[in-house]
């Protein structure tokens, strides 16, 4: 029964969701909102589990002085600081000017932006590897990327300004993006759509069971 009941619920809800997409009449029209609301409620309750788990693992690490336990201590201190300040400030904790808002604006946002900024360096290192002309495909990629990058900046059109309108780098870049790139991306999207249908059918029909441990 431990497997049968989840499979039965999945099958019924899955078929119900397929049907509701084609029926605009109540109660089918409310199904999506109901389930979305329930998902949010369950998710909100589950965040407590997540937070408790984070604290449990961090406290265990500090108590047993495991390797790098100092980072765990920082997690605990930060967690307690933000939770206590948020609770002390009550329901207006997000109003500009509060201590919580200060922490958010001047600690969280800069830290987040710093992580995002690292992306610029990683793009450079990954591009260097991807664009090395090792074989025919990589060379093709390099040439296409060169034209697209040059076509996206003003200097591209300055260099090719003497050429007819349609042959300038900006037009060439647009052509690469609008035709070969769009065609390839749509082919991937069609495959993804079919993959989702197939996966959903396997889950709804109970053929795919690995998420509940597999087996018959």
């Amino acid at each position, binding site marked *: 029964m431990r497997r049968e009941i989840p499979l039965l619920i999945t099958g019924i809800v899955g078929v119900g969701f397929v049907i509701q997409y084609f029926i605009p009449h109540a109660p089918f029209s409310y199904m999506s909102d109901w389930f979305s609301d329930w998902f949010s409620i369950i998710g909100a309750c589950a*965040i407590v589990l*997540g937070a408790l788990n984070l604290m449990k693992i961090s406290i265990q690490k500090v108590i047993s002085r495991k390797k790098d336990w100092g980072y765990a201590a920082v997690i605990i201190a930060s967690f307690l600081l933000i939770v206590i300040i948020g609770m002390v400030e009550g329901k207006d904790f997000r109003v500009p000017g509060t201590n919580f808002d200060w922490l958010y604006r001047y600690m969280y946002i800069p830290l987040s932006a710093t*992580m995002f900024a690292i992306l610029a360096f990683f793009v450079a290192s990954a591009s260097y590897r*991807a664009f090395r002309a090792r074989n025919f495909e990589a060379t093709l990629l390099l040439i296409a990327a060169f034209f697209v990058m040059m076509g996206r900046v003003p200097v591209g059109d300055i260099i090719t300004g003497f050429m007819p309108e349609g042959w300038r780098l900006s037009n060439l870049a647009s052509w690469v993006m609008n035709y070969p790139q769009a065609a390839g991306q749509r082919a991937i999207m069609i495959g993804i759509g079919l993959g989702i249908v*197939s996966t959903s059918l396997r889950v709804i029909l109970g053929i*795919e069971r690995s998420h509940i441990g597999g087996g018959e």
Partner: protein
Amino acid sequence: MKTIGLFRFLPALTSFSIAFFIIFSPALKAQAPDDSLSTTSPDALAVSIAPPTSLVVFDYKYDDGEALELTWVPSVDDLPVVGKVTGYELYRSDNGGEFYKITELIPGSNNFRDEDLSTGVNYVYYIVALSADARAASVKTEAIQTHREWLNFNLKYLFLIALIISASVIYFIETARRGKKLFVRKIAGLEAVDDAIGQATEMGRSILFIPGINDMDEVQTLAAITILGRVSRVVADYDTKIHMPVSRSLVMTAARETIKASYMAAGRPDAYSDDMVHYVTDEQFGYVAAVDAIMVREKPATIFLLGSFFAESLILAETGNSVGAIQIAGTARPAQLPFFIAACDFTLIGEELFAASAYLSGEPKQLGSLKGQDVGKALAMLVILIAVILATISEIRPLETVRYVLDFLIQVFTIKT
């Protein structure tokens, strides 16, 4: 419940859906716009500009009685050469009550969909053209009510396509179940899974599994969790250490259940620990910082990046690359695929992510579902080919029949909501 039990329901379900369409189709009559032609005049208003005319309201078809459509002919002073009209205001009265403004519209507007309405209420409208110094109102519409529909006939072609693809998937699952051998092309990224886990075992290092940053309502996360089921089974057999930091509490719960079930299936429930999966944070870059730190400190031998990723894809993949791990990535977000291809050893492109669990299981009935997908692909290729040929012919020599067929194909593959 056995899988076969659900199969038995399927023909009945399909028949029921078709019967549903046939039975309720007579009820799908759209209300004639003529019933609601404007006839009466609103209270006196300034008329130094011409008012909008022919204001028509009709029920929006195929909805739950929540919307009305309005169309009108803009004021003649709204023409670009005249340019007197600065905008429009649309007014509504509910059940004979006071008129009140429901929206403002820009010059040149000639239609509006009024949504979030209720059934059983009489709605009357009029529209006012505005200029710098004058207002001119149209005549009022007749009272109209919204109507609920049972079927969305705008989606009839989508329903048929979904039926064909679903039927082909089920047909091939049944064919495989009867024992017929089906050819499935090799997917390099999935062929490497066992080797990657084996290498981690030999090196005595851990495996890091990142299921993306979306929740369990994302099909890619579900696909990642199904692959986790297969991976953790091999991990349990090899007695390797798996580490899975997650950014959603529900994913943590689902992943724990999946790994626990795999360890039990492998006959090693004692080796399972809840700490294999742990929650970090819902915040995107907070999660990235934590996972990057885990990669740098633990130096895992194998990293799986499977699921839904956004800007963090390259940060994670490049950090994994820098610690020398074998990386197997997969996502159905086309914008992130180039990053994974550049930074990872193997990348599951789009549909391969969804095929992975079936492929790794090696079960005929699961592989059959992959074969069913191919029918959908063949159909898509055929339609694209026909449409390209027809569009080319239509450009070279405009023929009415060719244009008609092309328009029909466009209509079939355009989803109207």
